[in-house]
């Protein structure tokens, strides 16, 4: 019917970025299973996946009661040793039975939630990306806990270089005529509606996590620039407030680096509108200009004749 997921993204609670080997340890959340790491073009580490059993109402825009039984797949991600994520999703399918089956049935289908009774995909998609009623399947709660798992790791010193809110990206993917719609709701909440050709594959989850990472980077840089109050505080002060962005964020921008070929047109479309990379570059230029002007000012005051 459809796939729904939620990604929570935050600044890894450590003073500096963590090494690949630390990533492996931090993400070793299930004994005996390995952490997958890719190094190019940026270190990207994925924890083993874990299942959470659910038997609860699914969010429906019509507020009709839809019961779903099955398992949620979750994992933690660390990108560039600096950005942490908790990510969960379920594939929603119609149940062939009209009652709940033994757990062995659901465990044999990891990441699948079976709907008992009637339900329309559009109703669920609207419900999940709209305003889910309390008590419904809450993927955000699951993803939040997985992100907590990373952030609470004893291997992290918790001396993060700046404070930043987590963001949440709630997404729904369906098969059909290709389209993508990314919407900002509050300061922290975003939704994504994606219709892709062909059947769902986990590459769609990679795409959503990649989008969430970049949306968080952009959001954070905007916040840091706002906090610097360029123009209304002394240049040196503004520059000092911008340095954490230079030290910790600017090099992480690698849109679509880990996205499979057939999904890159979706990124391209978001680049046209709203234009993630355009906005990012304009902010980065602003940050660099500010720092450069401040450095020049410092240089000229220290070399001015008669002023020592």
């Amino acid at each position, binding site marked *: 019917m459809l796939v729904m997921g939620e990604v929570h993204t935050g600044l890894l609670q450590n003073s500096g970025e963590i090494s690949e080997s630390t990533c492996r340890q931090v993400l070793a959340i299930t004994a005996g299973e390995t952490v997958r790491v890719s190094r190019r073009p940026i270190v990207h580490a994925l924890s083993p996946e874990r299942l959470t059993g659910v038997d609860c109402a699914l969010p429906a825009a019509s507020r009709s009661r839809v019961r779903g039984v099955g398992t949620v797949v979750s994992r933690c991600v660390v990108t560039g040793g600096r950005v942490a994520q908790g990510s969960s999703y379920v594939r929603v399918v119609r149940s062939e039975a009209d009652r709940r089956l033994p757990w062995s049935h659901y465990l044999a289908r990891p990441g699948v939630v079976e709907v008992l009774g009637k339900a329309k995909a559009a109703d669920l998609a609207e419900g999940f990306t709209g305003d889910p009623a309390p008590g419904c399947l809450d993927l955000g*709660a699951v993803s939040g*806990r997985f992100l*907590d798992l990373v952030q609470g790791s004893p291997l992290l*010193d*918790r*001396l*993060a270089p700046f404070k*930043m809110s*987590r963001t949440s990206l709630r997404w729904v993917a369906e098969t059909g005529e290709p389209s993508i719609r990314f919407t900002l709701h509050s300061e922290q909440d975003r939704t994504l509606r994606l219709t892709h050709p062909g059947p769902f594959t986990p590459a769609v989850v990679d795409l959503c996590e990649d989008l969430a990472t970049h949306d968080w980077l952009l959001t954070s840089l905007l916040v840091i620039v706002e906090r610097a109050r360029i123009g*209304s505080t002394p240049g040196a002060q503004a520059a000092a407030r911008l340095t954490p962005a230079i030290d910790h964020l600017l090099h992480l921008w690698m849109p679509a680096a880990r996205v499979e070929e057939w999904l890159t047109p979706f990124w391209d479309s978001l680049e046209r509108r709203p234009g993630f990379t355009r906005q990012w570059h304009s902010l980065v230029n602003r940050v660099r200009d500010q720092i450069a002007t401040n450095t020049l000012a410092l240089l000229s005051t220290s070399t001015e004749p008669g002023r020592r």
Partner: protein
Amino acid sequence: MLVFAISDKGGTGRSVTGTNIVYRHALQGNDVCYLDFDFGSPTAGAIFSVSGVSRGTRENGLHEYLRAECPQPRRVDVWAESDREGLRMRPPGAGRLVLLPGSEGGGELSALTDEIVGRCVQLFGRLDEEFDLCMVDVSAGRSFTAELVLAATVRMPTVPFRWLVFHRWTRQHIIAADGLVTGADGLLDVGTRFGHDADDLRDRIRFVRTAVLEPDASELVGLRDEQRAWLSACDSELRELAGRHGVGRTAMLGKIPLDPVLQWREQLITDEDVLASKIANAETAAAFDELAKKIVDDNAWEGL
């Protein structure tokens, strides 16, 4: 940084002082939040002038959150939701000012379970990622709430935290404040039972004197010489007493003068109250401002 606000006695000025410190810290450019853990009477909303939550919130209050009855506690953006005109706009350069209200009619915690401690750890951990300062009003006296935060902080050894013990400048209050820290079932006693190191915990505790009337205050100008001499003698006696009880100058982070506005009403003292309407004293605002700086100034927190 987590800051726990406690007092031995009720009505000490803990909430009014804590909220004003948080407000000043936000004005200084920091992102701050205030958690109303005074579950028996969660009235912080009234001090921030958010009438919808003046006695706590009906839905998604902290109490419900800790009892796992809601996924996340409600957040109130004071700059957006306060009824007070002077607060309803974020001043340029100010950080976020967020209130997490308690639950209306929630009642005190009646027991401490592992699950509640786990929820509390989750909450503190997430807020610490996001806010420069999180002030927690732990309510008065020995309570499950105080035990809860002592138990939670043991589980998050890398998250910095500090305690402020509020007391008035009287004999009874000085003795009681000391007792709350060093007495039986006091903070150090319970804290070490939960696994804190006594010396480390001790170094994280400072006292704040509230509603202090200095013998040379302008309010006392009309007094007779005999009265002033008597007050002066009382004050030095109290200072001596405070010193003996470890509540003296070295362990004190700051003091807030008695203010006519606060005597009449629990509220934030804005610069407008001082400069425009002139109802509040400039010294009061300055004292809050200074405390808001000292709370994160490591020099003020060096070992005793």
